[in-house]
């Protein structure tokens, strides 16, 4: 990046801009500890400058500078994903959006809130709760994930089961386009706001969103132990088809329970079978119905073992802490798969077969986010301090995705690392349409380049697949106990 432009931005934004190497190095990564040995030869993840704009006007001004000079811009807020979604791969400007924070307005009659994109879901929840309201849904990383950030991903999580995807709840968004133009988008505008969902910061910078809210209701929590994945699916289907819709449903497989048990935090000290957590919210009448659904399910079926209510409540309290499993690490590798729940038992069965084949200990947990689909996280322990072994272990991530693909699933989120599998995520006509949108809005390709639409050259599907398969072969022969 041109040094004069860097200096211009430093002068303009003062202590809200920096080109210090010390600071920039922290923005060259996200949650995923991918070794420099792998990243540095392929990508320029170190931004040239980080700027923290305080309002839409400043964002537009930065975009105009970037647009005029063909400088890549990577928007970032919570930085809480693992696919390098908010990590630059062509240096340029890293736009830290954490000052774009706070509630702009609440429409209690219309049951919607307008909120700045850099507000975290927990901050919004706290604001709304004080007024007897709540977000309809939120991610399982709500304390760090931002409103805009989750919209830029697929937006399925806690509450989606009852209230649908975040997209279905968003009434309008304000966007700064790559050329600096600012526009409010709705479902009727051109482009429509739908274009920006799951766009991962590749089309522009979302600054403000108007989203629907719900009344803050009482909740009821249940936790059921099932002997195996097949019975777990049967139970899930029975709950889904009941007249009362759960707010949230999550599950852990047998191996995940064992991992939790080994670390001392398995619910009710359970070590065998699978568990499903079901959370309902609503009126007293609705909660009564929910109780009846669960009661009839457990009464009719002896293999459905209800866990004490206080344990189920504690499970809800800990809903943002799935990462606690990392205490068994030190590192964790894995894949998050968008999977038809119908195929969950077969998927989990193949995962266990893979565990045995590669001498791994794979464990899975996830959320059922629609009546048909779940987001399934399948993970295993690794050690990033042993770089070569760790890189070879990365091939197991691809193998997990292969199982997901076999059963009608695909990666949840693209970013950089899942870009070789973008053909699995979107059908060809969809991908063509997405690429057309990108070309229309960002013809210069300055917004978060290298993500979402196609993989960078070195990560093209052929290279990626061949490379990972070779590493997986090495892992199979030499990797016992890694």
């Amino acid at each position, binding site marked *: 990046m041109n040094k004069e432009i860097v200096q211009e931005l430093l002068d303009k934004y003062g202590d809200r801009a920096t080109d210090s190497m010390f600071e920039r190095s922290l923005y060259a990564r*996200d949650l995923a500890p991918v070794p420099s040995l792998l990243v540095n030869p392929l990508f320029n993840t170190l931004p040239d400058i980080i700027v923290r704009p305080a309002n839409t006007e400043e964002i537009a001004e930065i975009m105009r500078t970037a647009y005029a000079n063909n400088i890549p811009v990577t928007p970032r807020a919570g930085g809480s994903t693992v696919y390098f979604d908010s990590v630059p791969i062509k240096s340029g400007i890293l736009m830290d959006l*954490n000052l774009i924070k706070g509630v702009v307005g609440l429409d209690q009659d219309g049951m919607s809130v307008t909120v700045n994109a850099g507000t975290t879901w927990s*901050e919004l929840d706290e604001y709304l709760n004080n007024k007897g309201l709540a977000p309809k849904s939120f991610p399982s990383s709500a304390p760090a994930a931002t409103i805009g950030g989750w919209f830029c991903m697929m937006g399925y999580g806690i509450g989606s089961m009852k209230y649908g995807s975040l997209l279905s709840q968003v009434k309008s968004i304000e966007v700064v386009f790559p050329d600096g133009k600012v526009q409010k988008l709705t479902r009727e505008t051109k482009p429509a706001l739908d274009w920006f969902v799951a766009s991962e910061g590749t089309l522009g910078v979302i600054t403000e969103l108007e989203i629907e809210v719900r009344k803050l209701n009482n909740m009821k929590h249940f936790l059921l132990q099932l002997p195996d994945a097949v019975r777990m699916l049967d139970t899930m289907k029975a709950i889904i088809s009941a007249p009362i819709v759960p707010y949230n449903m999550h599950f852990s497989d047998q191996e995940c329970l064992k991992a939790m048990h080994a670390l001392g935090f398995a619910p009710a000290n359970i070590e065998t079978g699978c568990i499903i957590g079901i959370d309902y919210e609503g009126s007293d009448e609705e909660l009564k119905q929910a109780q009846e659904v669960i009661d009839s399910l457990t009464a009719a079926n002896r293999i459905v073992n209800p866990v004490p209510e206080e344990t189920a409540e504690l499970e809800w309290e800990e809903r943002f802490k799935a990462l606690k499993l990392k205490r068994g690490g*030190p590192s964790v590798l894995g894949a998050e798969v968008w999977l038809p729940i119908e195929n969950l038992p077969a998927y989990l069965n193949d995962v266990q077969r893979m565990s045995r084949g590669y001498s791994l200990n794979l464990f899975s947990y996830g959320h059922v986010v629609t009546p048909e689909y779940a987001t399934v996280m399948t993970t295993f322990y690794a050690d*990033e301090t042993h770089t070569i072994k760790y890189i070879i272990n990365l091939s197991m991530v691809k193998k997990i995705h292969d199982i997901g693909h076999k059963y009608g699933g695909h990666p949840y989120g693209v970013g950089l690392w899942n870009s070789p599998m973008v053909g699995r995520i979107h059908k060809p006509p969809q991908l063509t349409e997405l690429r057309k949108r990108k070309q229309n809005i960002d013809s210069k390709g300055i917004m978060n380049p290298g993500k979402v639409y196609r993989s960078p050259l070195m990560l093209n599907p052929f290279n990626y697949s061949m490379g990972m398969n070779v590493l997986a072969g090495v892992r199979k022969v030499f990797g016992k106990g890694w």
Partner: protein
Amino acid sequence: MSKESEKAYSTLEKESLICGRCGYCRSACPVYRVVGWESAAPRGKISMAREIFSKQNPNKVSDDFVKRLSQCTLCGACANECSTDIDTRKLWLDLRRRIADLGKEPKAYGAIRDNLLANKNITTFDNDDRLEWAQDLDEPEQLEPRVGADVAYFVGCVSAFFPQAAQIPLAIAEILTESEVDFTTMGGEEWCCGFPLISTGFVENSEEFIKHNVEKIKELDIHTLIASCASCYHVWKHDSEDALEGYDLKVMHTTEYLSELIKQGKIELNELDEIVTFHDPCDLGRNGGIYDAPREIINSIPGVQFVELAHNKAASLCCGGGGNLQSVDPETAAKITQLRVEEIKATGATIVVSACQQCEQMLIAAIQKAKLPVRVLDISQLILEAL
């Protein structure tokens, strides 16, 4: 994931690797809130610790890193949020110790240590003058160290030497006298509790101070010790276990002790027509687990309308004065205090009460600057007003 979170700490090397970089800590960190850079967030600091210590590159300790480590109030809000249950407060203390071991601590830390070793208190005053504040009592000599008293009051450096804080030990002495408690102090034999040494990384030096104080308590045959400073209390309660091994000493914060006296009917409180809010000191609340005692005291005063701050108890916001932040970066400390003052303002309280001299000093300065019509009182002063 159902077991209620218990914080864990193995080694700096392991915990830095376990950190998932989720960023929950970042949202809660008062320093990040006012500095705004990733390097000021707990996860940023742990990321760097991982590169330096877990991957064994001690030569990577830079001045920038040391500066960021010193920009921490040790408030424990990050530990409260940590998704991997890391006891981050322990981690920060461990990191500061490692930095001190490498001789790369901030200059201000070295000055704190040298002064403490020379004077045994955080000021340059003679340690024998620790009871100077008591000259305002009717019978100051009653506070001279006495063997076999029921209770020893550990006054703490700030209360003993800072004139603006002297009203706190005076209030406590008066309340204890009024309640006919058989109490004493350690006089000039009280040394700094050691917290400033622990928090700057000079743990070995702190052990000398802890050992001295424990020996003197044993010599006085004291079996109940009360402290009005939240940090002194924390050291006695949580960092002196080894030195106290085999000796029966009940350690209480004054809020706990005074609350008991009220329940026993030994303190009778009159009506106060005030709106009162309470600022939880980090070392008393989040890091010490004491939330109820101060609230019980406030609510036992007739006429008082108690209002909670927006962030209270485990979610309380730090005052900015912890972790020696003031000694290295008073500007950042003051900005953090300002966040808390905004919350105080929103309550409409006429009095903000706390139970830590450092918190009170920070709040007084910020409230005066903001010209708010709010008085800052230690909980003992509030009781005294109601006597």
